[in-house]
């Protein structure tokens, strides 16, 4: 049973592991199953033809030069401790095996060979640290952070700004309204409450077209208002906070009123501290929800916007770097890591908030 759980975890978190592993590897190795750095690496055998016109080729860190009767091979990566070249002719006879070379003398020349086909292979010995660095690197993250066309640090700031301000304002608006619904009587209360609740039954995507039209007419495209304001009316928030506030005993309010406290004071000094945990949960849920609100952020930002958020930035980045898997995974990592870290610290509240009664995303 325990084994099931471990296997299940690996299975469910597999994309997450794969993303992290890929983003930490050097270019070209990200998507391979190579996870343990190799101290001894054998490259090749590569084919080689002697007896043609002079020619030079580069294969990653290998350089080969051939001419009519000789050739030279060089290894240009600086981190190898010992390099051995082995040259075989077409019948499989070993022709030349070089002594172990090092980074100062890292190439060999073979002279006066009869023309024909040969093959060669290269054996590279590395120290542990060199082997580690030949597989793992933070370079991808550096490239992502410093990319001038796709400033991911700015995207990060924008995402944070949007998620934080939406969550903060949502909590304030919901707390104010929920207090009234929980503890006050006024004409039209039931009607208003059920009008709010009925909006919860309309799936969010149905609001996409008209909200976009509204934001366009307000001239809010590419502005923080366009990104934040349409999401402030969080009906689920009212619903959840009202449930908590109903539980506050009325005697507290009466006592405060006797002491001459105003409504604002009562709200600020009694209600807010008492429902603080619920406010925190609502804040977290809204923060995470807005961080992940890809569709709306895509609509409200045009490509030249200053407020492009992480997922939208990632979508644009992907259009340009389709095959640069390592960098793309680094960018993905960069987008989800803040939420992963937040989750690690607050998972108890996030999960509790969910079971407390949240369905509506």
């Amino acid at each position, binding site marked *: 049973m325990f084994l099931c759980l471990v296997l299940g975890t690996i299975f469910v978190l597999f994309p997450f592991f794969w993303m992290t592993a890929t983003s930490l590897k050097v270019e070209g190795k990200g998507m391979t199953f190579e996870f343990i750095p190799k101290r001894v690496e054998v490259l090749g055998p590569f084919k080689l033809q002697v007896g043609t016109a002079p020619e030079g080729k580069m294969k990653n860190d290998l350089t080969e030069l051939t001419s009519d009767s000789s050739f030279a091979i060089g290894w240009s990566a600086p981190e190898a401790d010992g390099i051995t070249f082995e040259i075989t002719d077409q019948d499989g006879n070993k022709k030349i095996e070089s002594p172990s070379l090092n980074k100062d003398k890292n190439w060999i020349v073979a002279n006066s060979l009869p023309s024909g086909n040969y093959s060669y292979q290269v054996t590279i010995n590395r120290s542990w640290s060199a082997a580690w660095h030949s597989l793992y690197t933070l370079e991808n993250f550096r490239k992502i952070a410093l990319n001038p066309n796709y400033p991911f640090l700015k995207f990060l700031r924008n995402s944070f700004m949007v998620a934080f301000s939406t969550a903060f304002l949502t909590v304030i608006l919901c707390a104010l309204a929920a207090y009234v619904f929980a503890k006050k009587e006024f004409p039209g209360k039931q009607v208003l409450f059920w009008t709010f609740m009925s909006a919860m039954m309309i799936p969010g995507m149905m609001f996409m*077209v008209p909200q976009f039209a509204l934001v366009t007419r307000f001239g809010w495209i590419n502005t923080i208002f366009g990104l934040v304001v349409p999401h402030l009316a969080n009906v689920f928030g009212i619903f959840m906070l009202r449930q908590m506030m109903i539980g506050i005993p009325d005697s507290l309010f009466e006592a405060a009123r006797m002491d001459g406290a105003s409504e604002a004071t009562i709200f600020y000094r009694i209600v807010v501290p008492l429902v603080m945990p619920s406010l925190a949960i609502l804040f977290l849920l809204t923060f995470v929800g807005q961080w992940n609100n890809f569709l709306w952020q895509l609509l409200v930002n045009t490509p030249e916007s200053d407020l492009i958020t992480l997922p939208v930035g990632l979508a644009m980045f992907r259009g340009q770097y389709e095959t640069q898997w390592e960098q793309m995974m680094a960018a993905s990592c960069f987008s989800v890591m803040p939420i992963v870290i937040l989750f690690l610290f607050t998972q108890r509240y996030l999960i509790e908030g969910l079971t407390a009664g949240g369905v509506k995303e």
Partner: protein
Amino acid sequence: MNRSLKTVIPFLLPFTAVFAVFLLYPAVYSVYLSFLKATIYTDLSRIFSDMKWCGLENYQKLLYDTNFYWSLIMTLYYAVLVIPMNIALSLVLASILSNELPGAKFFRAAFYLPNVLDLFVIAVVWTAIYAPNYGVIDQLTAALGLEKIFENGILADPWWAMPGIAVSVVLKGSGFGMILYLAAIQNIPRDIYEAADIDGASAWQKFTKITVPLVKPITLLLVVTGILGSLMAFSEIYAMTGGRPYETLPDSIPFFGGTTQGTTNLSGYYLFSKFYVAQEYGYAAAISVALLIISLPLSILSFFAFQSEGPSLRKLSSILLKKLRSRTAKAI
């Protein structure tokens, strides 16, 4: 009465104002917009205030739009793939976790983690996993010495693209169902299981005869929210296939024969493509309204299913408990 209003208004006004402008008005405006269309005289820089009344034209177009019907059928197919997988995985995980093994808290968090991450980003990661040649599937088959299963990766295969998307979405989303199931299972009184033990029920019998029926409200909730989620599915399609691969259907298929359809073009994505890509705002509004009419009964059902989940669960379990008690009493 007047005084009570006066104290209430400052508290209510901010929320009500935002609600009225950004939820209530749009709901009405959406319907109005569906009767408008852009003409060649429309000033595109202020398109929303310069569209012309066109009566039911958008709805007429929708009625004959084979792409729309196709997207609905694909949505149904997607729902049929995702929902059972999701329910099975969540329920299995939850019932294993409910045994209170060491580290249960850790595993609960681990399973739930993918659920808080951005669907779009996770879907991008899945495109890397599914990628042709470099992807995990192609490398695994190559390592086992098998032939490539999919010519250009699973997401370019008209038959397998949708199951591929479904698997990735289920793995991401099942943590949510697991948490709900876990809470429901922990609410089941232990006596029921103890009574079943006395009757000599096997673990499998306890699972199918006690656990599964008692968590039925959650299952219903997951089915309904699953259908709604499928109707609104967007990010995963946008990230993974963009509605592709497009196939021209053979004439033998009734109704759709001869048309070209995106094999992963779900209704939510179709709405997006009409709205954002083709910029047919009036038509997109009409699609919204049609989808709303389809989803509204389900939404209402899910709302009340969730409201009543607590009481109905307790009622069900007490009935079952009574039944079991009488049976054990007879046995003794």
